[in-house]
């Protein structure tokens, strides 16, 4: 779409993306693998560095719908006046906003919510950028097209259950059970020599995003890590009998889908869990400690697992954290302050941990949320919207920038469709595609992941948005 920053193609991009398993593509991977093996070219699959250098994605789902026009706020006096008028009693006072130095917004100026001082520092030091007014779309949509119903819009628009799925599936025109994180893992599975532990590690249990056609997530506990079965390390006679009986039940083949589904999860977890736990217990002490809330603890566990990637034989890792509680129909000002503060601490510590590990360039952390919220107030909160603002953090991020078209925030403008809901001006598909490309998904597989991508972006034309160094 418009206003994209055009980055010069880098030779490193071509090198990385044409190296290793990623270039094999996803859909025909198995047959390719067999062919390569038969040609005696299988060495890359036995190498810990298949797929080039290590890479990890950390997805933070702010579930409930983050009111992200109070996270990233225009500070130019005219734009702030529009913002304040639209938000009425939800507006952050101008004096409280933390100014940031965006390097690509010309004369437009922006700031962050007062709970985000450390995040502002990350932004200013080039570790972070924002993508603005992004949301689920099937094709570019104007206000009149929206009102006239002449273009298809995402199913169940404004509904949590649907929108939260769409951000995870990349398929807003349908309700499907697989997500683009899991499908990337399907495609890139050969990057990991470890076959016991899924590439997809979740701190928040089962989720659609990490569910591929063959991949399922490995769920970890945010503080305990992988959980093991009591007594599995005890060799006393009665316990040996118990273990054998458990083995027999887990190895049995039940004819029933429900029974098999139940015990297969236990079996997977038991094998992978022992290996994972041993590896993450070797994690270093991080110099910038993580605080005690669930988000920070989850990111601490992610950092532990990243520190163990080499031991584990995982050259690609995909992490998922669902961080809920953003559906602030009520008492938004207070609630959001508390939540963003937790985000601020967590991102700061996590970035420091990645730098301590010397792996910052290889780890990209990015936020998603099912929708932005209404600019207008419902009394003391906001309701479900559409377009919103998201962040990406890491050494590969082209930092200190605000990508996409940050809209003017006056009600009644040409993308506002009632109550301060904005039609997204950047498709979530473009955001996802750029992340997938960085992670090593070849161009030829992008539309497999995101079938509507071609409505916004010409595959092969470089960065869809520009926030990552490919």
């Amino acid at each position: 779409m418009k206003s994209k920053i055009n980055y010069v193609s880098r030779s490193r991009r071509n090198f990385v993306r044409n190296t290793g398993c990623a270039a094999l593509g996803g859909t025909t991977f198995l047959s390719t693998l067999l062919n390569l093996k038969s040609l005696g070219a299988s060495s890359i699959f036995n190498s810990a560095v298949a797929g080039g250098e290590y890479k990890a994605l950390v997805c933070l789902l702010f579930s409930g719908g983050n009111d992200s026009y109070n996270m990233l706020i225009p500070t130019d006096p005219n734009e702030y006046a529009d913002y304040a008028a639209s938000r009425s009693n939800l507006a952050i006072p101008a004096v409280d906003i933390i100014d940031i130095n965006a390097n690509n917004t010309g004369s437009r100026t922006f700031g962050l919510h007062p709970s985000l001082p450390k995040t502002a520092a990350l932004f200013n030091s080039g570790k972070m950028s924002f993508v603005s007014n992004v949301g689920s779309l099937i094709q570019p949509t104007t206000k009149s097209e929206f009102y006239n119903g002449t273009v298809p819009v995402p199913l169940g628009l404004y509904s949590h259950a649907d929108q939260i799925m769409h951000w995870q599936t990349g398929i807003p025109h349908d309700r499907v059970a697989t997500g683009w994180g899991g499908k990337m893992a399907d495609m890139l599975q050969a990057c990991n020599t470890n076959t016991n532990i899924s590439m997809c590690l979740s701190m928040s249990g089962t989720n659609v995003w990490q569910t591929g056609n063959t991949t399922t997530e490995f769920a970890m506990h945010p503080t305990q890590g992988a959980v093991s079965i009591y007594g599995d390390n005890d060799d006393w006679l009665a316990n040996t009998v118990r273990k054998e009986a458990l083995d027999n039940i887990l190895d049995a083949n039940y004819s029933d889908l429900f029974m098999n589904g139940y015990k297969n999860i236990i079996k997977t977890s038991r094998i992978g869990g022992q290996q994972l736990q041993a590896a993450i217990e070797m994690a270093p002490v991080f110099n910038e400690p993580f605080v005690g809330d669930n988000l920070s603890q989850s990111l601490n566990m992610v950092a532990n697992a990243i520190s163990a990637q080499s031991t584990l034989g995982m050259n690609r890792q995909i992490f998922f954290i669902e961080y809920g509680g953003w559906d602030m129909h009520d008492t938004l000002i207070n609630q959001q302050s508390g939540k963003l503060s937790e985000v601020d601490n967590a991102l700061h510590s996590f970035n420091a941990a990645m730098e301590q590990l010397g792996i910052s360039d290889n780890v990209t952390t990015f936020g998603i949320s099912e929708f932005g919220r209404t600019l207008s107030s419902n009394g003391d909160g906001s309701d479900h919207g559409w377009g919103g603002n998201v962040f990406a953090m890491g050494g590969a991020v082209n930092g200190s920038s605000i990508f996409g078209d940050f809209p003017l925030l006056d009600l009644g403008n040409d993308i506002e469709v009632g109550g301060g809901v904005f039609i997204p001006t950047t498709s979530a598909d473009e955001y996802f595609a750029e992340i997938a490309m960085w992670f090593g998904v070849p161009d030829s597989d992008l539309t497999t992941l995101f079938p509507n991508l071609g409505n916004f972006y010409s595959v092969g034309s470089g960065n869809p948005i520009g926030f990552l160094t490919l």
Partner: protein
Amino acid sequence: MKQGIFFTILSLTFCFSNVEGQLYKDYIGAGHSQGIIVMTSDNMMGSEGVKTLDGSGMDNPMMEASRFLAQATLGYRPTDIEAVKNLGFEAWIDDQFLEPTTLLLPEMNSIWYDLKVAYANAGIDTSDVFGPYALHYNYALWTVNMSNEDLLRHRITEALTEVLVVSMNSDLRDWGEALCDYYDMLSENAFGNYHDILSEVSKSVQMGYYLSHLNNPKTDTTNNIRPDENYAREIMQLFSIGLYELNQDGTPKRDANGNQIPTYDNLDIKEMAKVFTGLGAGAILDPNNWPYVPIFGLGTWAIDKTVPMQIFNSEHEPGPKVILKDITINIPNDGMAEVDSAISYLFHHNNVGPFLSYRLIQRLVKSNPTPAYVSRVAAAFNDNGSGVRGDMKAVIKAILLDSEARSGVMMRDITSGQLRAPFLRTMQFMRSQTINTTSGYLLNNGYTEIESTQHWPLAAPSVFNFYLPNFVPKGGFEQEGLVGPEFKIHNTSTSINYVNRAHAWTYWDAPWWDYEDNLIWPDTTSINTDYLYSLTDDPEKMINVLDLYLTHGQLSEITRENMRTAMDQLYWTWNEEWRWHRTRMLLYLFLISPDYVTLK
């Protein structure tokens, strides 16, 4: 309330005479006798193999009764199996309809009072003890469900808590009385009418708080303030009609182009939001303190959270509201009449029957009901036979007595079954056993279960419950076109945690913990396994007893063989401790077996 005496006198002996003689190789349901070998039968009870084969034997009705109870209750005792066998399914349901409601709120208040006395006796300043909050609701929930007789009612209540969701995963956690009262409200209506349920839920201060239509003001154009849309959306999407027009069998209607037909659009939500304005506190906690009477906008700190909301007409949006595309509601100066009218229109929408029926069938019987089954239950919802719509008794009978719930043939159908939600696994096991408690109290803090398995009544992560009805797990479900909602919370972490819970229940003899640090009274609970210990010379008998209690006679041969092997290995001559190990091991293996954890 002391429960100890009641628990320690529970008798388990009657059932041994029914099962001990039988050494069957498989469960025999009606129409499932081909190729089955009945090695012996129980001569003492006058049964013989052929009777078992043709369904007239003694054990078959006991097993059918056990399976029925696994659908109709949260947990049941051996005496309940006997009762169902003697009465028959429908008469047992009719009996249950007459059982008085066991309420949580008075139980919680009693526990809270006793705790404060005990703290005071221990020299602790009771004004420093926080509560009652979610912990005390958990205590009451557990105490009631470990000792009540209105088993069917609480199973329905639990199902309703998963449809009409409020959760302690919000500030409601601080108000035990609010959680108890909401659960009790659903219990009291479980055999009533869904119209009343929808109405009482909508007006409850708990839902008003949870989905923010409490203190929701009318439009203020000067300040760009418009009505909160939260409840307007969810009452339609989650509590009544859903997103798309449905046929009576629950399948979506299609337009001429084959597309699904939305039941409402965003404009309808904005209009419905206007209906749910002006609702505020119905009563205040302390009438001796300001504000003395409820006022609009009053914070929850001062609101009595067991009294329904009332309307403040001056804060209710004036003017007509057009809901559900073309229905106009306009009752000037009577906001509550507008609320009632909107709820009534929703209740009478054709979608409600199939929408609710599908969800309740999923909770009670199976994850993938056939459209014909949904249609039969929806028909009972639409008309109970006497022209009444929304009669829960008719819906419950239609669900539990349907051939698809009762037929033995369905047990072997690949589409038939569910992964049982963790709370049900826990509850059924505990209720089937005799619990010894030294304090006389049954105080399960609940947090261990919530943390381990993520499932507990009124503890969902959001209004979307623990899982969505259409969740498709890995492992062949998608290929078969099947859903398995409960698999959403069965992952590498919770699955192992459940195995470890079973370990604690059996090997550690720790069925649950309170949260009182033994400061106030010695409280140890344990499971009385004497009935198994006495059978340890004959593992097959042990297996058969537990097969009846826990797996309704449906224990698979594959699991049974693994159990036999383990039992045989647990034997030595130097002492008798192998008996203890056989007892604990067998319970453990039952609890973690796919046979117990799924319900077919």
